[in-house]
Structure formats: structure tokens, C-alpha cells
């Protein structure tokens, strides 16, 4: 008995500092790469080339960020200014997000609230897209987009990414929980299906839409392979692709100070979304199960 209570207190005391120590290690592992990037974004190229690089912020953050924002990087890849790159990323992220949410809301609504021949076939066709990620159908999708004359356009960048099995599944699951009485009441009040969709279904889906927004915005913002394939003109590059191209490894040395300040700029929107909408984010992640 005595031995037990001493171990219990020992564990009690342990659990005070041990979890914190482990979690600080986690915070360190997570934050260190970001911290190094931030430091480099405030230094001159000469300071960055100093080995070892200093670990406190330098004084050149304004020079670097304004150069990145309005000029971009020189070298083998003449990048557009970060303002253009971020604008392209924003367009892609928003079109993909709202596109996915809209088409999924509509198709889930059709599958749940109507009976029509082909209903389950359509549902399974959408479901199967889960198994066809861009990575496995790179070349043929590229050819299709070429044939449709969508290369080097926002439409080509976004349209192929808009179908979403996960969003459709999530909405379908949620729609199945809407009480029948609500539908009956709406029908008695003479509301048609579109009225019911607009006035009842959409407002009820708000938390699901918010949850999907976080996940899909990050998905859209972070796209890499598809934009890399589909754009040949630098002015349409999204920021993630541009940062990789700036490193290039060609004859020219990398402008690390510009790369690092552009990287910080590229991280701000998705990181903000995840922090501001953390509750929705966790819900979105666990509900869609990817």
C-alpha cells in the first residue's frame, strides 16, 4: 500500500515535467525549420552564406520582403514577383475550394433527396475518383487538357482538381441525418426542392462547409505536380512551384534571401487558415478521413 502510494506520487510528479519536456521537444522539431527559414529571410545573401548562419533575426527583412514582393528572384528562372505568385495561388486555392464544395453539395443533394435511374451508378463513379489521384494519371490528364486547349490557363489549373469524392461522401452522410419532418414541412409549405436546398440544407451544412473549407483551401494552395505540368508560362506559376524553380541548381547561385522571404509569404495564408479555423480544421480532418 505504502509502496503503491509512493509510486503514484512519483508518477504524479513525473507527469508534471515529462509531458512538457516531450512536447517542447515536439515544438522544437516542428518549429525549428520554420525558424531557420524566418531568420534567413531577414539576412543578406552574404550573411546566409556565412557558416554557421546566425540564429537571431537580421535587419534586412524589409529589403528582402519588398524585393521578393515586387521583383522576385533573378537567376536561371526569372520568377514573377511574389505578389503575382501569391495571387495565382489564391485564385487556384479559392476556385478549387469553392468549386469542390459547390459540385459536391449539388451532387450529394441529388443522390440523397431524389430517386432517379442511374443514381447509384453516378454515386459510385464519383466515389471511384478517390482511387485516381493526379499522380497516377499525369500524362493522360495532361493530354486531355491539351486537347481542350486549357494549357496555361486558370481553367486548366483548377477544373481538373474540382471533382471531390470525399466532399460528396461527407455531404451525403450529413444529408441523410436531416429529419424527414423537415422535408415534409417544407413540402407542405409549398417549398420546391431548390428552395429547400437554399433555405434549409445550405444553412444546416455550415459547419461541414467550414470544415471542408480549411482542408480544401490547404489542398488547393499546396498543389504542386499539376501546376508544374500545366503551366509553361512563368506568369501563371503558383507560389509553391515558383519557390522550387527558384532553387533550380543551375549555373546561377540560388538567391536564398529571396527564396526564404517568398517561402514565409507562401506559408502565411494556409497557416493563418489553420490557426484561425482550428476547430473546423480538426473536424474536417477527422470527418473526411481523407
Amino acid at each position, binding site marked *: 500500500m505504502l509502496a503503491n502510494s509512493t509510486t*503514484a506520487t512519483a508518477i504524479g510528479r*513525473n*507527469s508534471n515535467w515529462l509531458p*512538457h519536456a*516531450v*512536447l517542447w521537444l515536439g*515544438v522544437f522539431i*516542428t*518549429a525549428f525549420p*520554420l525558424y*531557420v527559414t524566418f531568420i*534567413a529571410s531577414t539576412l543578406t545573401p552574404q550573411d*546566409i*552564406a556565412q*557558416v*554557421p548562419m546566425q*540564429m537571431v533575426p537580421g535587419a534586412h527583412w524589409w529589403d528582402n520582403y519588398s524585393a521578393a514582393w515586387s521583383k522576385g528572384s533573378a537567376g536561371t528562372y526569372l520568377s514573377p514577383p511574389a505578389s503575382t505568385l501569391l495571387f495565382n495561388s489564391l485564385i487556384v486555392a479559392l476556385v478549387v475550394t469553392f468549386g469542390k464544395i459547390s*459540385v459536391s453539395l449539388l*451532387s450529394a443533394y441529388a*443522390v440523397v*433527396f*431524389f430517386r432517379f435511374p442511374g*443514381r447509384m451508378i*453516378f454515386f459510385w463513379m*464519383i466515389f471511384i475518383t478517390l*482511387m*485516381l489521384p493526379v*499522380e*497516377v*494519371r499525369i*500524362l*493522360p*490528364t495532361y*493530354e*486531355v487538357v491539351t486537347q481542350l486547349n486549357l494549357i496555361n490557363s486558370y481553367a486548366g489549373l483548377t477544373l*481538373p482538381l474540382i*471533382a471531390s469524392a470525399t466532399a460528396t461522401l461527407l455531404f*451525403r*452522410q450529413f444529408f441523410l441525418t436531416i429529419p424527414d419532418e423537415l*422535408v415534409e414541412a417544407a413540402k407542405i409549405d409549398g417549398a*420546391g426542392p431548390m428552395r*429547400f436546398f437554399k433555405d434549409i440544407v445550405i444553412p444546416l451544412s455550415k459547419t461541414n462547409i467550414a470544415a471542408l473549407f480549411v482542408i480544401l483551401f*490547404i489542398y488547393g494552395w*499546396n*498543389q*504542386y*505536380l499539376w501546376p508544374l505540368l500545366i503551366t509553361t508560362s512563368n506568369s501563371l506559376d503558383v507560389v*509553391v*512551384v515558383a*519557390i*522550387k524553380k527558384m*532553387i533550380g541548381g543551375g549555373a546561377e547561385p540560388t538567391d536564398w534571401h529571396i527564396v526564404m522571404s517568398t*517561402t514565409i509569404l507562401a506559408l502565411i495564408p494556409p*497557416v493563418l487558415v489553420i490557426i484561425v479555423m*482550428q476547430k473546423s*480544421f*480538426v473536424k474536417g*480532418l*477527422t470527418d473526411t*478521413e481523407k
Partner: protein
Amino acid sequence: MDRRVIFPNKLLPYLLVAPQLAVTLIFFFWPAGQAVHMSLLSQDAFGQSVTFVGLDNFKEVLSDPDYIKTLWRTLIFSGAVAVCALAPALLFAVMAERVVRGATFYRTVLVLPYAIAPAIAGVLWLFMFSPSIGILAYGLKKLGVDWNPRLDGGDAMLLVIMAAAWKQISYNFLFFLAGLQSIPKALLEAASIDGAGEWHKFRTIVFPLLSPTTFFLLVVNIVYAFFDTFGIIDAVTSGGPAKATEVLVYKVYYDGVHALNLGSSSAQSVILMAIVILLTAIQFKYVERKVHY
């Protein structure tokens, strides 16, 4: 599962599914069909004539020692990424479940990498471990480690594994945390009363009860390592040095886009599709218990 009360419209539902269906048909089924079709054809060097060759492309791919090497490399890479992303995530989640003060802070920082694009995660790690200017490469040199991911395949592989795992820890952490929170507290208290220590409780209660989460995450992590790490590999090593970090997805991309070997690239695409279908099937068979479709 179906609704009892529905709307009677006949044409409207077709209009509602049309946008999603159009995108699906044009950008998913058509290309996937093309991939299968192209994988059965062979094109001459000038792209002039195309002949039907049946399964020859598959035979060629599967008997190509390079492809088999890439397959093994991908398996090792995926296994390493999964382990390196799962183990720390579980540790952090177990610890995060025990703290009250600072819990929000820890969680907020630990989920940040989820928001970061794979390619950018790659750039961050590339910079820290760059042999000439990287701060951690400098540290390694001080310790007497001969580090050069640009020349040494092993170093390069280690670097992409670290970057890929770093990014995936967030995701695993959140799922483990959710899994831990669903374990009945009474069970743990009963064990404590019986005098079980923390490690004993973890081994006999927590870990077994977490096994559905762990298995689900294992599949998700393997899918992630197979497909979503393209950006990391392209940014950090471009598959090099000497193909040391070329995984299956990267090979499809390289053979198709750079080497322009359409038949082989398509056959590889089809093989990858089969792998995704297998992994998704495993995942859904398992997730089914938690979610009802």
C-alpha cells in the same frame, strides 16, 4: 441507407449531378481510360506509328530491374516515413493528453506542418541540410559526420524521409489524440487502482485500444508516402543522386514527361492505379466500422 421522404422531380437531379459528373468523366475517367489504352500500345521513336502490343509494356516494366529496384526503394521509403511519422506522433499525443496548461499552444504548433506544402517542406529541409550553407549540415560536420545528400544516395534518402515524416506528424498526432480521447477513463482509473504504472497501462490498455486508429493511420501514411511526397522529392533531390531517391510516382513522371516513354509510363500508371485501388479498399474496409456510407 436511403431517405424515406424525397422530392419527385425527374429532370432536376440529373442537372444537379451534371457538374461533378462532367468533371469526373472528362478529367478522371477519360484520362484513366487513356492510360489503360496507351499502356497497351507502343510508339516508335518518332511518334509516327503506333502499334498494339497487348501486355508487352507491362511485361517490360515488370521485368525491368530498374523498376523492381524502384519498387523496393518505394517500399523502404514508405515504411520508413510511416514509422518515423507515426512513432513520434503517438508519443506527442500521449503526452498532450496529459497536460492541461499549454495544451492549446502545443497542439497549435504541432499541427502547423499540415498546412505546409510538401514541396515547401522539402525546401526547408534542403536548406537546413545543404552541405555548403545548411546549419544542421554544419552541425553534422562538427560531429565528424561526412554529410552530402547531393553525392551520397543514403544521405539523400535520409533527408527526404525526414522531410516527409516531419510534415506527416501533424496529421497522425491529431488522429492519435482523438483516438486517445475516446478511450474510457474508467478503464485507466481501474488499472491505476490495481497499481498499474503508466507504461504498463499504455502497453496493456491504451495501445491495444488505439490499434484501429494505428492501422488506419498506417494505411494513410503509406498512401501519403507513395503519392503525396512527389513535391518533397522533386524539390529536395529530383530523384537523385543517381536515382537513389526515385520512387514509383517520380518514375512515372520522369519516364513520361522527361524521357517521353509513353507506353512504359502508362503501364506504370496503371500499376499505380492498381496499388491505389488496393490501398483504398483496405482503408475503406477498415474505416467502414466508424463511418457508414
